[in-house]
């Protein structure tokens, strides 16, 4: 008789070994920054990404992205649009699979349901089916209504950040996952989650209803892994850090290079990154 249940805990290096150029990768909310920093540091190229906002911007600034399945890339701090995303779009070097939240989740649901497509109404009458030829206007077979047929969106891997997991991949977010996380998990071929803390299986079974992802394919322990974003129940976002990023990204110049070098390319591990940020700064981000 076999008696050992296998653990699913991975190191940062083991995760990077699973990623290759050209893959389709999906990133949850808050952004799994530990993974994103490693992807940038390891110079993964030509990715198709499902990501949004400033973490998407960092992936683009890091040179990793060829195509983005995009519904939102806002900036903040007086900048309406994420600067690197904007530059890459306006120069024509980034492919944008233009969509919106309902269309994105519809395509992800189709993948999870092993269907080639699902219909959706949001987007009918807009420019979306004109600028994204994968979205087809159809007449529904029952009543003849005009709808969008959204093809299945199938990420190779989903990367998420969560509060806790046991060693077997039973993930529990604190107060609910980011809005897209479960869609990505259900659609992706594999899901790897970075967590603030690894807890016992008994802790998980004390409240199984809180298990949001049952059976992640890999778990990486990564305290402060969402920095500079928030991690619910642990810390708030580091607003001044994000402001510095926007400030240097606006010009798309040498300062951005310096910033990337300091925080993305130089630290060879998550711990090294946290050393660079400094413990005083991290401890100042308490959540309440």
């Amino acid at each position, binding site marked *: 008789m076999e008696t050992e249940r296998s653990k699913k805990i991975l190191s940062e290096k083991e995760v990077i070994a699973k990623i290759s150029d050209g893959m389709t990768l999906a990133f949850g909310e808050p952004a799994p920054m530990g993974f994103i920093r490693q992807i940038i540091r390891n110079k993964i190229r030509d990715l198709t990404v499902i990501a*949004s906002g400033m973490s998407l911007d960092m992936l683009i600034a890091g040179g990793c992205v060829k195509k983005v399945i*995009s*519904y*939102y*890339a*806002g*900036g*903040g701090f007086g900048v*309406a*649009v*994420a600067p690197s*995303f*904007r530059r890459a*779009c*306006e*120069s*024509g070097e980034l492919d*944008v699979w*233009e*969509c*919106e*939240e*309902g*269309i994105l*989740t*519809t395509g992800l649901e189709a993948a999870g349901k092993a269907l080639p497509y699902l219909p*959706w*109404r*949001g*987007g*009918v*009458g*807009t*420019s*979306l089916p004109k*600028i994204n030829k994968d979205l087809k206007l159809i007449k529904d077979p029952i009543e003849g*209504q*005009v709808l969008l047929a959204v093809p299945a969106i199938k990420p190779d891997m989903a990367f998420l950040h969560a509060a806790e997991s046991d060693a077997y991949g039973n993930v529990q977010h604190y*107060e*609910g*996952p980011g*809005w897209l*996380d*479960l*869609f990505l998990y259900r659609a992706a071929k594999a899901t790897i989650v970075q967590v603030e803390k690894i807890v016992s299986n008994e802790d998980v079974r004390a409240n199984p209803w809180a298990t*949001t992802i049952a059976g992640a394919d890999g778990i990486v322990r990564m305290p402060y892994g969402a920095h500079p974003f*928030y991690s*619910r129940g642990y810390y*708030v*976002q580091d*607003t001044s850090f994000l402001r510095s990023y926007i400030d240097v990204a606006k010009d798309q110049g040498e300062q951005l290079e310096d910033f990337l070098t300091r925080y993305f390319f130089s630290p060879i591990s998550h711990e090294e990154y946290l050393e660079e940020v400094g413990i005083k700064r991290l401890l100042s981000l308490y*959540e*309440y």
Partner: protein
Amino acid sequence: MNCTPQELMAIFLSRELKDGEQLQVGVALPVPEAAVRLAHIMHGPNMELIFLGTRMNVHQLESLPLPAFGWDRRVVRWAESYSDRGHRFDQVKDWNKRVFFIGGIQVDPMGNTNLIGIGENHKRLKFRGPGSVGTPTLSTHVGRYYIVLNQHSARTLVEKCDFISSVGWSSGGADARKKLGIPGGGPKYCVTPLCVMDFTEEEKTMRLKSLHPGVTCEEVELNTGFSLVIPNSVPTTTPPTEEELDVLRTRVDKTGILRGT
């Protein structure tokens, strides 16, 4: 009544909101956020507020401070439930009692809005916008919505959007949405720092409804990139009552975000 245009906009919008409605506000939209909170305190004990996937009724709280930054997930401390548990769009059939607020980098006379970008070629835009977020689905299904602009400018209020991310009244006409099979009630007003605009009953093109105190028709026309319908007589936007302004300043916008401080 001395108040900023942003305060007036928030107070105007707060009066629009009915008790029992679900009010959804996206990130970094201080005017709609303030409007919703003010209405909830003033006349909306049964309103449901939806911020960042969190659904709450916080009528019983003494104050509903605007967050310093719209992306502050600490709003969960007030949650009664999550508006999505990984399935944000599973109940859009009930969104007829939901109201939301939309901005735009371009808005045309029929209330179609553009968050995608400016330019002729989508593969090489002159100005890349932030993207549609959830506005195409929201504008399709909610009972009604409000276009809220931070600036009243001819660059934003244009004859024709380069791209449409949310359908308002499409190419015009009261049956425009019905012809597309879109169930939601569409945009009701466009609210700017200068005025409030509605849509004509038949053509569904934008019409001046009221001017904020001190603003002239000419000023509005000069800053509008299309020919706005101007009625013979245009009233002034009803000013805030003392109570409204007091509640707004002491219980909602305590730090003065709408006063520009």
